[in-house]
């Protein structure tokens, strides 16, 4: 079943440059999609169009077959959540509890129900010990986890992560990636992650590659990541396993292509070793 359908979507910030050009794609319910592309390729613009923060010039966005328009905007925003890049730009409350409550208040959730919801989602992101903490006392990773809890509390069907880990230290990145993977495994949530992390791409279900406002490639991680020449032409990184395989090939060893280090190591271990 389709969660999201985008048809012939276009948008420009000014007349000279088109940030998004005639983009069409569909995303299945419960899938994990990654969107890659260099800075300025239009990835974040698409995210903002999908939640109605920007208004399209042309085309159609359907969420659960519901078209995104002025009339449906509030309904769609309750189904689609977003977590942005900068942990400091999206903390609204003066404590973790207030921050998670903010969205609930906006959606007129009754006060007596709120506490239970806040506790439930703080637990999901492992932040129950910090409910009364002020944002200044939190690390970047903790702030992003609160942002995720705030989004989850709205019970969305789909969450967009717009480079949500790129400003975090490795520990913060790890925390967020773990929370996202766990959410995806435990719930029916549809995930769209805009990322530069090739290892995250390798583990996703579906990949979109953007360049100059267009979708240049679409497919499974294998289908995309093995097209190394095109990726390099689009200024994107290729997996380490592919780089090593290319070198092995130059030296005479050709193997089945692998997009992860684990896969490559497994294959190499099939060979007999000379003592």
């Amino acid at each position, binding site marked *: 079943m389709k969660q999201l359908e985008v048809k012939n979507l276009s948008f420009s910030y000014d007349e000279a440059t088109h940030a998004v050009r005639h983009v069409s794609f569909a995303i299945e319910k419960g899938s994990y999609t990654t969107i890659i592309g260099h800075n300025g390729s239009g990835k974040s613009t698409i995210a903002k169009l999908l939640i109605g923060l920007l208004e399209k010039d042309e085309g159609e966005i359907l969420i659960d077959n519901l078209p995104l328009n002025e009339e449906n905007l509030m309904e769609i925003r309750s189904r689609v959540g977003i977590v942005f890049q900068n942990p400091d730009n999206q903390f609204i409350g003066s404590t973790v509890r207030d921050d998670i409550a903010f969205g609930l208040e906006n959606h007129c959730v009754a006060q007596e129900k709120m506490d239970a919801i806040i506790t439930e989602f703080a637990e999901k992101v492992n932040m129950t010990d910090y409910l009364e903490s002020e944002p200044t006392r939190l690390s970047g990773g903790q702030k992003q986890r609160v942002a995720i809890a705030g989004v989850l509390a709205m019970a969305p069907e789909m969450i967009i992560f717009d480079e949500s880990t790129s400003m975090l230290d490795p520990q913060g990145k790890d925390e967020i990636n773990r929370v996202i993977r766990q959410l995806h495994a435990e719930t029916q949530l549809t995930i769209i992650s805009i990322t530069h992390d090739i290892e995250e791409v390798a583990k996703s279900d579906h990949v979109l590659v953007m360049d100059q406002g267009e979708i240049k490639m679409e497919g499974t991680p294998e289908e995309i990541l093995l097209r190394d020449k095109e990726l390099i032409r689009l200024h994107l990184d290729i997996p380490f396993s592919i780089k*090593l395989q290319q*070198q092995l090939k130059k030296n005479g060893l050709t193997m089945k292509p692998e997009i992860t280090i684990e896969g490559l*190591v497994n294959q190499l271990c099939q060979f007999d070793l000379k003592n």
Partner: protein
Amino acid sequence: MSIRFEKLSYTYSSGTPFAYAALKDVDLEIEEGKVTAIIGKTGSGKTTLVQHLNALLLPTAGKLEILGRTISAQQKPEHLKSLRKDVGLVFQFPEYQLFEETILKDIAFGPKNFGASEEEAVRRAREVIKVVGLDETMLERSPLDLSGGQKRRVAIAGILAMDPQVLVLDEPTAGLDPQGAQSMMQLFMNLNKQMNKTVLIVTHDMEHVLNYCDNVVVVDHGEILQKTSVHEFFRKTDLLKQLNILPPAIIRTREMLNQRGFHLSEDIMDIPSLAKEILREVKLK
């Protein structure tokens, strides 16, 4: 000559109930003319350490010798201003600090502040904008119109315009896309190799440490856990594991293969040598 920390300690809010010892008895020598990576967890004291280099922080105890000057608890260095010019410190997300109407004015602000004439400052700005890989025609534009990566280059150009001998960068590639990060690192390499600048980089990116740096300093709980060459640092992965740091992909691959029966040398640090050694070990059918 080198940069020397001797028994240097720094305590935030010293003498209050909130006192926090961020650096404890640090002894450290950093060679001039090299690229040194400063690594460690968030909160380990990396930023506190580098903020001593241009006397932005003065030690609570101990001293620092840098470029012929001594900075200690008792004495502010003489010629503090010239030290600030000679040691350029680029903060995290420096693009948030751009403030002038045009890129030219923003870059020229530093040299003017340090006494350069208007003419000289503009000349420097025209020079360094090219060094950071941007076009001279951009100088009249507002810095706010640029992309994140370009803004960061302008901020770095502002520091380079003062022609520092030591360049200190606090997480210079955080938040950039992989290619932006790579070309940023390449820029620092050029400054080091061609202009002989001493470069210190605070980073979490082990791929950058492996590919670009000469030495590594590991900071942990306000102490120097290790200072060694990059090559030595990545030969063993025990310390990395202990610090919960994910090693670079090539080192991980080498270790995974060795755990499963390969005997790859610990000196392997690049793809061609890894491929060559793998082929030496497998029997091809």
